[in-house]
Every structure is written in structure tokens, then in C-alpha cells.
């Protein structure tokens, strides 16, 4: 499938800001399940943009605006083609005990994705985590059971939480948004010795052909989880939508948790009084065959 994604972040300052500096992680990945057809980044006021690849392989763009400005707008427009990629069934058929053994032998390669991280503390909620990943379970089933459990036991409630809400609070309230579910799922996975990482991206919320409004996460950045499969692939799982990641997900950045992938992180000098707005639009485009 082909999509055109536009991701705009706008800041409006009550008092003119100066010395703005920001790093962006809004450049979609190129991998087996997607490729970039074209892409442009626009910044107003105009600024020279530089670029590097970070520790997790994400493309990072950054810029400075030293002079005074009242507003800052960053728009990333990308056309992406996605492909349905089936996970290797052989890996999913292994039992949990076996995959644990494999992961144990790869602790160095998988270190970051088994350790606690800033938003993902481990070894809390012993009772919850003990429910999952019994030694004899099939790995694939155990993973599906986990994301379905989150989907069924947590209510998606936009605005109920923000990025500073700790997992413990989400567990207590039983509601949250996609990044909370992703962090929670990471905590349960890592506590069980399953290597997993955080993914930021976009999702096509409504299928234009069936007009199924059930997919949540509309018109905003989305977040989900990838787990490591023996054999060397990462498999995307979306607990917010109770499904494995498919053609309608567009992957942007990966990391230990939200901190490693924040789409825009910046500073400016000026009054703290700012309004900011994020607009993401995503539309399916015609396949040119």
C-alpha cells in the first residue's frame, strides 16, 4: 500500500522566542516492510537542517533558529510504500522455554532491550507479569495473549494520561493511550526476559474501502512494540488495536522507550507560555503499476 503522510508540529509563543534548537525523529524507516518513495521537510522560519543516524539506527534531523520568532512550524511529508511481511512461523512455534534459552545466549546483542529504561521500570506488578510466558507456551501464542490482554483490560482514553504518567498509574487506572500500552507491554515483556523495543509511527485509522472506524489512534502519531524473534527479526505488535503490525502501520523510529524516539525535542529561550499543536494526516494514494 502507498500512503502520503504529513506530520506538522506548530509552536506559537506568547512572547517572541529565540535560540530555538530542535532534533526531529520523523524520518520513516526503510526496511523489509516499507520503503520511502519521496520525502520533504519544511521549517518556518527557514533553517538549515543537518542530519545523523543515531545509536538505534534512526534518522535524526536538527536545526537552530537563533533570531527572534513568534511561531515555529515543522512539516515532514513522506510518501511510503508498505508491504505485508509475515513473521517466520518457525520462530513463533518455539516454546517460551526455548526462546528464553536462545535470548540468554544473545544477552550482549539484546542488552538494551532486556534492561529497564527511563519509562519502562522492571519488576513491578509481579502478579500481572507472572500470568504470561509460561515455559511451555508457544512463543507466538504467548505474545498474542499479552497484547489481547492489554487491549481487553485497558480502556483507550485520549488525554487521560501524558508522557510523564508512570506505568504504575496506568495499571491502577486501567486506561491510557497508545504510548502507555506500549510501555506497559514492554515492561511485561522485558520482565519476562523477552527482548522488546518501542516503535513510533503512524497508522491508517480508517480503511477507506471498508470504512471501519474501529482502529484507534487516528490523526496522531501512533506507538507500538516490536519483539525480537529467534532468527533475527523484529515483529511489530500493536496492543492498542489488538493486532500484529501490518501494511497499515508506518514505522518511524525505534528505541528503548519514548525517550529514544520523541518526534521533536527542542528548547528555546523566552517565556514558558507556548501553545503547541501536532497535526498528522495520512492518506492512501493510488498504486502506480
Amino acid at each position, binding site marked *: 500500500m502507498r500512503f502520503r503522510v504529513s506530520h506538522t508540529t506548530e509552536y506559537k509563543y506568547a512572547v517572541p522566542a529565540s535560540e530555538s534548537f530542535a532534533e526531529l525523529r520523523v524520518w520513516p524507516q526503510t526496511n523489509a516492510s516499507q520503503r520511502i518513495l519521496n520525502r520533504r521537510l519544511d521549517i518556518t522560519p527557514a533553517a538549515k537542517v543537518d542530519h545523523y543516524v543515531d545509536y538505534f539506527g534512526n534518522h535524526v534531523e536538527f536545526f537552530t533558529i537563533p533570531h527572534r520568532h513568534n511561531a515555529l512550524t515543522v512539516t515532514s511529508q513522506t510518501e511510503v510504500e508498505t508491504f505485508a511481511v509475515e513473521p517466520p512461523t518457525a520462530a513463533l512455534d518455539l516454546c517460551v522455554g526455548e526462546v528464553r534459552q536462545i535470548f540468554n545466549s544473545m544477552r*550482549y546483542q539484546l542488552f538494551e532491550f532486556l534492561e529497564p529504561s527511563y519509562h519502562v521500570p522492571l519488576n513491578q506488578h509481579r502478579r500481572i507479569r507472572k500470568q504470561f510466558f509460561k515455559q511451555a507456551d508457544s512463543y507466538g501464542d504467548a505474545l498474542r495473549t499479552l497484547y489481547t490482554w492489554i487491549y481487553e483490560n485497558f480502556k483507550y482514553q485520549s488525554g487521560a494520561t501524558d508522557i510523564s504518567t508512570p506505568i504504575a498509574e496506568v495499571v491502577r487506572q486501567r486506561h491510557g493511550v497508545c504510548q502507555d500500552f506500549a510501555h506497559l507491554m514492554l515492561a511485561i515483556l522485558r520482565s519476562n526476559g523477552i527482548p522488546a523495543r518501542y516503535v513510533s509511527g503512524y497508522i491508517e485509522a480508517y480503511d477507506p474501502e471498508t470504512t471501519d472506524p474501529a482502529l484507534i489512534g487516528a490523526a496522531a502519531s501512533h506507538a507500538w512494540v516490536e519483539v525480537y524473534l529467534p532468527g533475527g527479526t523484529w515483529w511489530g505488535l500493536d496492543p492498542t488495536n489488538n493486532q500484529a503490525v501490518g501494511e497499515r502501520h508506518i514505522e518511524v523510529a525505534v528505541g528503548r522507550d519514548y525517550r529514544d524516539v520523541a518526534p521533536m525535542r527542542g528548547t528555546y529561550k523566552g517565556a514558558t507560555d507556548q501553545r503547541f499543536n501536532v497535526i498528522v494526516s495520512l492518506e492512501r494514494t493510488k498504486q502506480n503499476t
Partner: protein
Amino acid sequence: MRKLDEVRLKVDPFRGFHGGGASAVFDAEGSARAPYAPIVDVIRSCSPGDLNQRQQRLDFAVEELGLQFSDVSSSRSSANPWGLDLFPLSLSAEEWQLISTGVVQRALAFNAYAQDVYSQQNILRQRVIPHDLALRDPAFLRPLSGIEVPEGEYSQFGAFDLVDAGEGDWRVVENHMGTPFGLSHVLQNRRILSQVFPELYERVDVAPVAGFSTYLLEMLRAQSARANPHILLLTSGQPGQAYFEEAFIARHMGISIAQSSDLLVRESRVFLKTIRGLEPVDVIYRRVESSALDPIAVPNANVFGLPGLINAWRQGNVAIVNAPGAGVTDNRALLRYSDRIIGHYRNESPILRAVETFHLSDVDQREYVSEHREDLVLKPMQDHDMLWQICGERPQNSAASLARIVRKHADYFVAQSIPEPAKLPRFKEGEFSARGGYLRVYYILGKEPIVLPGGMVRQKVSGHRTRRLTIATDGLKDVWVPDSVVQDSAPKRPPAQMGERFSISSRVAESLYWAGRYLERAENTARQFHTLERLRWDQMAHAEQRTYWPLLQAVAAATGQSDVTKRKRPPRDTLPLSKSLLLDANEGASVRACISYARNSLERVREVISPECREVLEDITLYLNAEAKRPVSRARLAELCAHMVSELARFNGTAERTMPHDDTWQFYRVGIFFERAVGALAVLKVAMPRVVEAYHEVDEESADLTALLRLLGCLDAYRREFRSRAYVDRICSLMLQAKHVPSSVNFCLRNLDYAIGTLSYSGARALGSDLSDQIHGLLQVLADFPLAQSPMDEVGWLDAGELPPKSAQHSAEFVGEAFAGLAEQVEALHERLEDIFFSHQDVFAREPTLFGLE
């Protein structure tokens, strides 16, 4: 008595030290070993009284220096954690050769480790060391991976702590390769000991240490291809020992100190904000932890840092020493694998071994540690803020509190079995006792690595101190290396000609400006109270008191006490008011508060303040703190005012004589003149309308006008100028227009203009000319001021039956408004100064209540 002294002389001063056994200093027969023989001889030739006296002089010298880094000076002695012992550590040529080759080997191996961990991680892939030690290190910052560091030299300047396990078996206790601390102590220890005890150095050729800072500077210069690179020392700016050292090193190297807020990144280049705009920076000597450098590259809620710095560095547009991330080399868990690391990267066997170290993430080692708890020292993997953030707490000052954190977060801790250090004589209370210590040795890498021939010994204390940048110690020792082993190495780069000079940063300029203003304010208030107190307020009749009340009100108003100006009558007892305006630390503009603001402003730019100035200010602070605790009386306050006036004059005299009269100095002067002008107008604004109201020409001698002149510090000037009794318009002319009277607004503005004129700002930012125009405009306003129309130069006659003063024609209200308007115009200069020279700065000293003159 004489007889007793003679007996004492025959007693060996070392009797309490060696007790007959062999030691690092004496052999089994009791004769001094070669490196110590000259020291032992000199000391044995001194009488006990002489030794005591030398130690006292050492203590005194150190204490004087300690003043420089003591925090708020409640008492001098308790704030100083630095002591210096008169018996040095002396190394033989062979020992030093061993140590210095071992130090270089180790520095190179651990540098290679840092480079590897931030790139391929081969040492982990090949399982030479357990991967979790490296990957769990809080100093390992993943965002710094994949950045090319020139020559792979992460730590170009570093240090190691060594311990002599006996017979010159030196072992490494700790790496200090990230931000080595203590160089200033090395230099100062040598300077002080050789001054206090020159005889020690007479018979031995000790390698000099004074060149250390030059080597460091040359290394920093070599980081940039430019002929005259702009080098800065980046500090966190926190007052304390670390800042003392930074100021000291920066002064020795002649480079400036910057905090991250002084810098700006623009299109991946780093600039310093200066009074002349933005100046590009080429080399940063970093004294800030890597994780606090750039809040965008390494998200850390607790610090500001410089956004974009890491990207500028990544692009090779600025050199940073030591490279960000270098702290991974200090990971104590690696000490256990020192030999493997040296073998892996250097393919050599280790020259210096590390002390036995256990890391608690390993089950077996943890078990061993818990069984041998008594013999081991617990330490965190890193003395790194990030580690305590992960643990969620810092240990309190007890072993139990540390042990509790260790139980919860064992992965982040190590235990060391540190051998009892070889003992050296330590002089205390008249005799030598035996005390072990740790030797810190410094290296500088580059084409030809240098190990600085000397160092310092920290005498042993129990337990581990977790504050990284402190030298908490039970005394330091100088370290001697024979000069013969030091090969003369050519400078790494020929000294460049003096290039363009670099501007002072806006923050430095602003701090000096505010210091000038606060000190002038304090001086004004003290002098004005002194004048008022000399009028003997308490002995006045009530009516008389009412006559003087406007003057007291004026002073109070100038000090920001606007409530007082609304009172029609004086309070029965003005003593509490006086006390609060002089001594109340919480009263925003009291003399004491002003001194404290000035001191805080200057503390932040200690590198540009002469030690002499600092000493005077310290005296003043201590004096005021002590006075504030004593019961007040009128006499005491009068004495305090007089003392403050003379002390502040001493400060200005000292500053004038000891500080370079450069741009920094000019901003101090700008502050003084601006404040003096504003202060004079604040008094005039309140006093004049009341004076006009009460003014009767028929008065024989208008007493309160004389007092006003005295208050304004220009009674003599008035008499010299007019040779008449005081008239309102003449006072106004004098105060507003006189060219040579230091209290006059004209004088202040012209000097301010002059000070700004010396800054030689030019080019695209010729903003100063606009400022100069503004000042000239103000001088014209002064000349045209309605109340002061008698031209100064025409007053050449003796006073006799002249015309009635014009001021009589004006209402009090008119006078009040005229002065208020004038004051406002002069105060507006501040905004211009700020816009032109300081903008973007976050200033501590800007205290809104102080300058809110209503």
C-alpha cells in the same frame, strides 16, 4: 628552660614514626632511604619549635587560599577542607620511571576501550570482559556513539590514584580519566611548601611542576588547526572546590570560563555571547559531566546544558576535551579487568596492576563480598549523577545508608580490597606519626604523552566519598620526582603570536556591572546613614526631627523602602528602621543584602577577580554577618556605617590597583556610575519637593539644606563652588551639572560614557554609538533642567544679596515631577545597556525589588 630545649633537640623527631622498623622512608637499620635522606636531614636539623612554626605557616597559607573556595563564610576554619603536610612524598628515579610508563600504558589502553565501546564494541563481542559492566555503566551514553573522536583520544588529560602496597609495589585504585581534579592543588602545594620550607628544596633537584598548566594549554591549542584558537573552559558554575580549581586553571592558562548559558549553537557552530556579539569557539575544555552537556542529545531533566553542542562536536566544528563520553574509562567495575583491557588493546602485560575489585552484579563475587565485608570498601560503579538518579537516592553520610542502596541496586556497585598504603611521616602536634596515603598522578596524551612529574598525595580517610569533584582529605602532600628523569620535551606547538584578543562574555560583563551597582548602592546607603546619625537624631527636639524626616525618607526611598516615604511624621524611634536598612539580609536593598548580591555576582566570575579584592569582600561579609548578630545601638550603627564607608573605599582602591583595567573593569565602572547617578536622583526626587515646601528664604542658615548637601556627599564641593549658604537652585545645579564633583549626575554620566567609549566596539555592532547619543541627550536634559538655571561658570562672585532663588517660583509638586521624570530617563539607560551588551542572559542579580523606585 634552655636546658630543656637542648635535651629536646637530641630527640629524633621521627621517633613516633618508625619505631625502629623498616618503612618507605627508613631501612631496617634506621637510615633514611636515598630519596628521603635530604628531607630527613633537613628536618632533623630543625628544632621542634621551628617545625611547629613551619607547619603553622603552612596551615596559614593554605587557609588563606582555602578562602578562595570556601562556601559562604560563616567561619573560615570550618569551611576549609584542605591541609598540607610538611613532609613530602619523594620518589626515586626508578620508581618514577615505572609509574610513568605504567600510567601511559594504562591511559592508552583505557582510551582504546572508550573508543571501542562507542563504536564496534569488539571487546564485548569477543567476550574479553562481561558486556553488562560496559553496557550498564551510567556514564555510557548511547547518543554519543558513532562519533569520530580525533586519534581516538577520549581522555587527553587524566589521572590515576595509586597506592604503594609496600616496597614500591604501586597499584591503581581508581581511574580519573573523565574530568581529573586537583591540578590546582598540585601547583599550590608546591608553591606553598617551597616558600614556607625552602631548605627542603635546597639540596635536591626536584622536577618543577609549575609548567603543568602550560602543557595543558598546549594540548588544548593543538586541538584546533587555527593559529589562535578560541579556547574556553566550560564549567557548571556551581560554587565550591571545583569552581575554585577551574578559576585557577583558567587564570593560569589565560583562557576564559564559560557556562553553557554563555554559549549558543548556530548551524552546528558554537559561539560565545560577548559584549561585541557572537564569537566562534574552537576548543572547549570541559569540566561538566558528559550527561549534562546537551539536554537534547542526552535528555536529562535536571540540567540545562547547551542544546546542539553534541551535534556541533559530531560535525567536527568544535573540539571538546575530554571528549564527551570519556567517563566510561572511570567505570570501577572495569578495574577488575584492567590486565585484560591492557592486554587486549596494547598487547602488553600490565606495568601497574589494579587493586582487587569485585563487582556486585556477579553472584559469586557478591557472595565473596558479603563474607568479607569488613575488609572491603564499597563504591558505586561511577561517581556520576546519573547513577544516583537510577538508584533514586543518594547515600547519606553513613555506611548503613550506602549498604541499603547497594542491596537494592547491586548491579551498580563494586567493592575494593585496598592494601594498607605504605606509611609516611605526617607532622601533627609537634611530632611525626605514621600515615598512609594515595598518590594521584596526571598525564596528558598527544603525539608524545607526558606524565606530569609530580602530583599529590591524599592522606588516607576512611570510606569512599561519592562527590566526584572534591578533594575531601585529611591533608595533602607535595610529591617529588627527581629532575634528572624528566626529559626536556619540545612544546607540542611553537607558541603562536598573540592574535586578536577575545571579548569578555556578556555574563562576565553583566556580573561586573551588577557588582558595581550593588557595591555603590551599599556605599551610598552607609554614607547617608552615617551623615544622618551624625545629626544626633535622638537628641533633637521633636520639631527639629520633623524637619529632618524628609532626609531620612529620601534615604529610605533610595533604598527601596517606599512605605516610609508616605509617612508624614517620623516614627518615635527610628532605630529599627535604620537597623533594617543596614543589616537585614532579607531587606532587598539593605547594605548587607547589597554586599551579599555583589559577592554572589563576583563569585560567579571569580576568574576575573583579583584574590586581593575577594579578600576584602570576604572581610566585609564576615564583618556584617557578625554585626547582624550583635544587639543594636545608635552608636554601633554609626560606627558600622563609618566602617562600611571605609571598607568599600578599600575595596575600590584594591580593585583599582589589582585588577586589569580592561573591558571587565569598565563594566564594573559603568555599574558604579550608573548606580551613583540613579541613587542621587532617588534622594533628590524625595527630598527636594519637601525641601521646597518647607523652604523660607528668610531662614538665617537653612540647616536642612546643609544636611542635604552632606547627605549627597558634596557639602565641601558646594562651598568651594558657590561660597554661599545653600539654595535650592544651586544645589540642583551642583548635583546635576557640575563637571568635577563625583556626586553629580553630570559627572556620573560623562564617566559612564567614557567607560563605554573604551570598549572599542565596532563593525556591524556599532550599537554603542547610539548609546553614546542617548547619554549626550541626557546631559543636555541636565543642562536644561528648570530648577537649575544658574549657569555654573557665571558664579564667580562672593555671595552678597543676590537675586532670590528661582526655585521659590516652583511648587513642590512641580519639583517632584521634574525629578521623577529625570530619574526615569536616566534609569532607562539600563535597558539600553542590557539590550546592547547582555541580552539573553539569565542574571542572578536582577532583583526586581531593588530597583523598583516608585
